């Protein structure tokens, strides 16, 4: 019986949290559009539902808070009250308190919550504005034109009259999509097993190919080849299907941003419009779970350091209102999230000076560095463009954490900035994390895998074709000079197979292009990344391991990390 009750309460928590999550963006929209009856009604419905559902279960605190918020919303909807930032703040606070109360129910904490402050706040909002004053809004707001638009006579209709409810705004027909809530661990198990099948398939393909070479024309071998080809296709489909099971829309992460931008902008006295595109883009669940913090950090930075104050913007001839655009889309096998602001841009000179005073680079190094390279210094640990970090983007966390968090998802961050035009942070992530196309390479006697997505092309060159410029080996490819790193040296692997020819992998990681010289390229294979427990993959540049078609365990090299290392050493 108690179990059953727990289940009902859990269900309530999930529903209530979903509703509350959906409300935040509505508030922001409400502030932008003024007294929009439709939005108010939607918020009202949410509150109403929470109140009712909480009532069923006897959560009186929730009922009390939701009831008062609902009353205010009803007055707003009927034009008996005029929306103002104070009222929005009060209702937003109410949603925060509801969240807290629900959280306590969730964690089963026996906390004696004092909800009197919020009740008093809501009551005072109610009493202040309960005198119907539709004509002359006494509450001073900066959005009078919008409000006037909002108050239309038809809002006077009393929605209570049941006869009229027939003509109520037709509710969107709920899509009765049959869904099943499945424990993530079960999906992960399927994912794991699918990975194992991929490995077995690879071995089988390998074996079948060998047999074909040996006994070509044999009937049994022919049908084995056919069967493995079929298995190959089905396995690919299975992979895709399992992958999709774990995919969720980015909206889950983005939904928090409107409120966050609103609150921060308000606290900093800035006026910022947030536009979100591509929130339907689906990414792996682990991306949903881990991309939030880096995004929050970048957005905070844009609000705090990027977008100028309204006065400053006007002085520059820019619109008073700043803009941040979050744009998510799929590009090939990658998911890209752009965070674009129209602020002041990143000042190369400021970054340069800062990096020198912080001892991150020397003056001579700075002279030699390109603007792009300098801007990328903000990703170094210990870098922060403001001495006194504000409450907003401070908190002792720097952009380096953004970079490393994104790198953990096998992604990378790029910056494009232009003075007074704005800055774009681009996060690129792989579509799936578990299964990748890899290039198998050989260094002396050892075999490694390198993610295919980072390799632009491969070529074979004579060692003598490699030139040396101030201690750095370089190779000219189609008139572009690219640095070359010898993998044998980087990994400390040497053997007798050092012939006079080398294979060159042209790698592209973020905005960096470079070459990696290896002894042999063995081919391409679809591999399943298995994490290796007990090693620090950050430190050693190894992403994980995989089992190849012929049953060998092969380490997967993390080119992003390796490139970062070599570039930071060689400048």
């Amino acid at each position, binding site marked *: 019986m108690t179990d059953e009750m727990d289940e009902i309460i859990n269900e309530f928590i999930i529903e209530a949290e979903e509703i509350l999550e959906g409300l935040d963006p509505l508030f922001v929209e409400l502030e932008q559009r003024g007294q929009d009856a439709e939005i108010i009604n939607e918020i009202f419905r949410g509150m109403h539902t929470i109140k009712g559902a909480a009532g*069923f279960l006897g959560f009186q605190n929730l009922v009390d808070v939701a009831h008062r918020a609902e009353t205010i919303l009803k007055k707003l909807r009927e034009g008996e009250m005029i929306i103002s930032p104070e009222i929005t703040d009060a209702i937003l606070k109410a949603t925060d308190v509801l969240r807290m109360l629900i959280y306590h129910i969730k964690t089963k904490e026996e906390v004696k919550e004092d909800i009197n402050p919020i009740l008093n706040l809501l009551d005072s909002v109610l009493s202040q504005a309960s005198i119907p004053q539709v004509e002359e809004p006494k509450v001073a707001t900066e959005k009078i034109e919008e409000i006037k638009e909002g108050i239309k006579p038809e809002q006077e209709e009393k929605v209570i009259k049941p006869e009229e409810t027939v003509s109520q705004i037709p509710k969107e027909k709920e899509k009765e999509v049959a869904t099943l809530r499945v424990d993530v661990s079960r999906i992960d198990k399927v994912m794991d097993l699918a990975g194992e099948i991929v490995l077995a398939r690879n071995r089988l393909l390998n074996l079948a190919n060998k047999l074909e070479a040996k006994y070509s024309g044999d009937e049994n071998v022919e049908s084995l080849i056919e069967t493995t080809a079929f298995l190959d296709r089905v396995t690919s489909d299975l992979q895709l299907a399992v992958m999709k099971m774990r995919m969720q829309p980015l909206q889950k992460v983005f939904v928090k941003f409107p409120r966050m931008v609103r609150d921060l902008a308000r606290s900093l006295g800035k006026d910022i419009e947030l536009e979100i595109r591509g929130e339907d883009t689906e990414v792996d669940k682990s991306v949903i779970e881990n991309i939030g913090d880096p995004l929050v950090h970048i957005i905070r930075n844009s609000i705090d350091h990027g977008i100028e104050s309204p006065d400053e913007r006007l002085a520059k001839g820019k619109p008073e209102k700043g803009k941040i655009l979050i744009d998510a889309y799929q590009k090939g096998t990658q998911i890209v999230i752009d965070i674009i602001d129209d602020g002041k841009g990143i000042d190369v000179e400021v970054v340069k000076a800062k990096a020198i005073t912080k001892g991150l680079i020397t003056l001579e190094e700075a002279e030699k560095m390109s603007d792009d390279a300098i801007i990328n210094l903000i990703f170094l640990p210990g870098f922060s463009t403001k001495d006194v970090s504000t409450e907003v983007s401070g908190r002792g966390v720097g952009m380096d954490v953004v970079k490393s968090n994104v790198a953990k998802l096998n992604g990378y961050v790029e910056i494009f900035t232009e003075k007074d035009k704005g800055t774009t942070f681009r996060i690129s992530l792989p579509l799936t994390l578990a299964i990748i196309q890899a290039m198998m390479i050989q260094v002396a006697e050892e075999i490694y895998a390198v993610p295919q997505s980072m390799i632009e092309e491969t070529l074979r060159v004579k060692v003598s074709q490699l030139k040396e410029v101030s201690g750095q080996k370089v190779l000219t490819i189609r008139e572009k000079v690219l640095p070359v790193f010898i993998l044998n040296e980087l990994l400390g692997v040497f053997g007798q197979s050092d012939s006079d020819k080398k294979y060159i992998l042209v790698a592209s990681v973020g905005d960096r292009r470079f070459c990696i010289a290896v002894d042999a390229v063995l081919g391409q294979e679809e591999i399943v990344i298995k994490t290796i427990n007990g090693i620090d993959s950050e430190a050693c540049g190894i992403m994980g391991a995989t089992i190849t078609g012929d049953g060998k365990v092969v380490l997967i090299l993390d080119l992003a990390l390796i490139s970062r290392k070599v570039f930071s050493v060689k400048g």
Partner: protein
Amino acid sequence: MKVLVVDDDKTTRKMLSLILKSKGYEVVTAENGMDGLQKLGIEQINLILTDMNMPYMDGIEFIKQVRANPEISHIPIVMLTTEADEEEKQRAYKAGVDDYLVKPATGEQIVESMKRIIKKIFGKKE
């Protein structure tokens, strides 16, 4: 014992279903009066729990329709609504509800009311 829950709000329907199921009732849900009438045509319903304000067909009209149809007019109806107005309550009783509960009502209160009505009806029959 099969209960028809009529409410336009998804969460309310879900929560009510869960609570009633936990108390051992079977539950069928409908999104509005129109939908409710359809469900009554398919399912053998023993009791109706309905909201008042709903789009397409509201609770009052729904009750009137149920009471006007001899095949289903005997089914007891509990109205569960936010309308605390005495006037609304009278309208509901006039249309033919057996009990009138004002939201927010706890699960216990709802089940109590249902039991009360069932007892009353059984009492009459015996």
